[in-house]
């Protein structure tokens, strides 16, 4: 995580510094050397197997990319050609996009999903950052135990709390509204708390103590100093939650009743029910709606690729 520190040296310094000489004593030094070598492209990449490896990667990439290409291509085919498995549509048509817009309240579903996703992502990021700050900056009795509890909730299967949680929202009269899809995010989420806390722990403490000495309140230190410095970690949480809530099906199935309140995944499922094996077999409509549901996530990926890769690998190494 050091590379993300605001005060760390820019990458270029690796080349300017003389390589450490003498016996390597610590693991950290070994790692540093390995890393700086990685940057300088070691000879290992001119491996004789290289062409074989590249060929395998190209073939596998086609396998992994093809379902997307198939889906997009099929969305431009007339009904009779959806299953023809041609790469380029024989007859190119835009009709499916028009039909799906007329047959389903797709615009409404998109608006609902955007609202839920925005609220879910912003609230969970801010609340998790607050809690993370509580764990990162303050020293108090029971901190280790409480943080252990946070981590333990990550292991809890959702099925166990699903029913009582439904009963809470039912008692509050919120079933059928979009509120249960995001409001729990006001209270932070374990994985993001963990991720942001790790980042905050690596920030220089002097900065916050200096702000305190200058008379800043505890809240100001968090809001004006810690939060802006933690932006890289916040971005990871934000992007992860955007994906999680955009694609969430289970909650939408539990809480949404009327098709005007549907989110895109719930709406897509209702299209499968109505136009798929509901007897009509209009797969071209379902295919087109799937494209509309998926494209925003592809865009999110390209906007936040760095954060996603970082978040996934951080979860793997430290989890």
């Amino acid at each position, binding site marked *: 995580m050091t590379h993300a520190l605001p005060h760390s040296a820019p990458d270029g310094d690796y080349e300017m510094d003389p390589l450490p000489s003498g016996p390597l004593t610590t693991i950290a030094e070994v790692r540093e050397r390995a890393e700086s070598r990685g940057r300088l492209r070691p000879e290992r990449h001119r491996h004789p197997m290289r062409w074989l490896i590249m060929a395998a990667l190209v073939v596998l990439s086609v396998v992994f990319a*093809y379902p997307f290409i198939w889906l997009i291509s099929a969305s431009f085919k007339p009904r009779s050609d959806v299953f023809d498995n041609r790469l380029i549509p024989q007859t190119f048509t835009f009709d499916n996009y028009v039909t799906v817009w007329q047959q389903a309240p797709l615009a409404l579903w998109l608006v609902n999903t955007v609202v839920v996703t925005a609220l879910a992502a912003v609230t969970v990021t801010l609340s998790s950052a607050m809690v993370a700050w509580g764990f990162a*900056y303050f020293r108090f009795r029971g901190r280790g135990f409480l943080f252990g509890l946070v981590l333990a909730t990550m292991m809890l299967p959702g099925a*166990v*709390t699903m029913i009582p949680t439904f009963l809470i929202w039912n008692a509050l009269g919120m079933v059928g509204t979009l509120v249960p899809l995001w409001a729990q995010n006001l209270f932070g989420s374990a994985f993001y708390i963990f991720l942001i806390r790790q980042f905050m722990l690596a920030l220089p403490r002097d900065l916050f103590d200096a702000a305190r000495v200058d008379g800043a309140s505890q809240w100001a230190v968090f809001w004006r100093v810690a939060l802006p410095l933690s932006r890289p970690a916040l971005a990871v949480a934000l992007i992860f939650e955007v994906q999680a809530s955009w694609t969430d099906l289970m909650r939408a199935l539990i809480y949404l009743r009327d098709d005007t309140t549907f989110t895109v995944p719930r709406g897509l499922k209702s299209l499968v029910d109505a136009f798929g094996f509901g007897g009509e077999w209009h797969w071209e409509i379902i295919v087109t709606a799937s494209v509309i549901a998926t494209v925003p996530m592809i865009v999110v990926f390209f906007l936040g690729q760095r954060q996603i890769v970082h978040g996934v690998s951080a979860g793997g190494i430290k989890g």
Partner: protein
Amino acid sequence: MSAVDASRVPATVDRARSRRRARRRNSRSALLFLSPWLIGFGVFTAWPLIYSVYLSLTDYDVINDPHFIGGQNYVELFQDPKIALALGNTLFFTVIQVPLHVLVALVLALLLNRAGRSAGVFRTIFYLPKMTPPVAVGILFLLLFNGQNGLINTVLGWFGITGPAWTTDPAWVKPGLILMSLWTVGASVIILLAALQNVPDELYESARLDGAGFWRQSMSVTLPMISPALFFIIVINTIGALQTFDEAYTAFFGSGNTTYSNDAALFYVIYLFQQAFEFLHMGYASAMAWVLFALIMAVTAVQLIVSRRLVYYEGETDR
């Protein structure tokens, strides 16, 4: 001397008192920052856990008050043929899907690790399916694995193989779903790739000096060094596979499906969802949730015990 001491004592006491006061103020601020999580934990984790234990001992249909019936739900559960079916399907899926998932992810990560500069492009292609909403993955399954004219069977046909009816033949539904699920290995690939890149080159160099060939290096250097990451994805994916829902539910369940039997795709959480939200058997579903919880805990515990012998953590006792 004694005069100096006497003048010092009150000052020390004063300082200690103010320090104590500061600490108390400190933990009050900490509590403020932790409050979102503390409230959320109480309302959406602790209470649901307790309440769901109680519910599992009752007969409850949301409309009428819960009616206490003791352990009857658990007795019924063990006699319910659908539970046996769902449990069997889920275990079959998990036992086959998890090793295949890990194997595919490992192969892709090993290839990417040797891809040099172009690794980024391929990594993007392998990760993108993970961004696809699971509903769309379920839809893609129905389309690509269609028995008559789906892409998979068309490709198999080029090699003279008559593919099975993946979406309708009960014997082939789960293998089909497993194959489809391998499309979304992207996150595991990133985790393993990060682990592979963290193996210091020095280790390979000294292994080579000791005369270790490719196989020996893989077994004695690579495998131990990435074993924590491997263990992590095995645990996470086992927990995920035991709770599989979205794709299978989209493809086989819901109001639309009147066409064919979906017993082969009845996974445990799908049956739990049906019991809770379609039949409104909240008590029975709560009992089911606790059985799932026990199963997940047991499986994870076994994995943890086994891992003690097989997973190598750098920086632990042996050097």
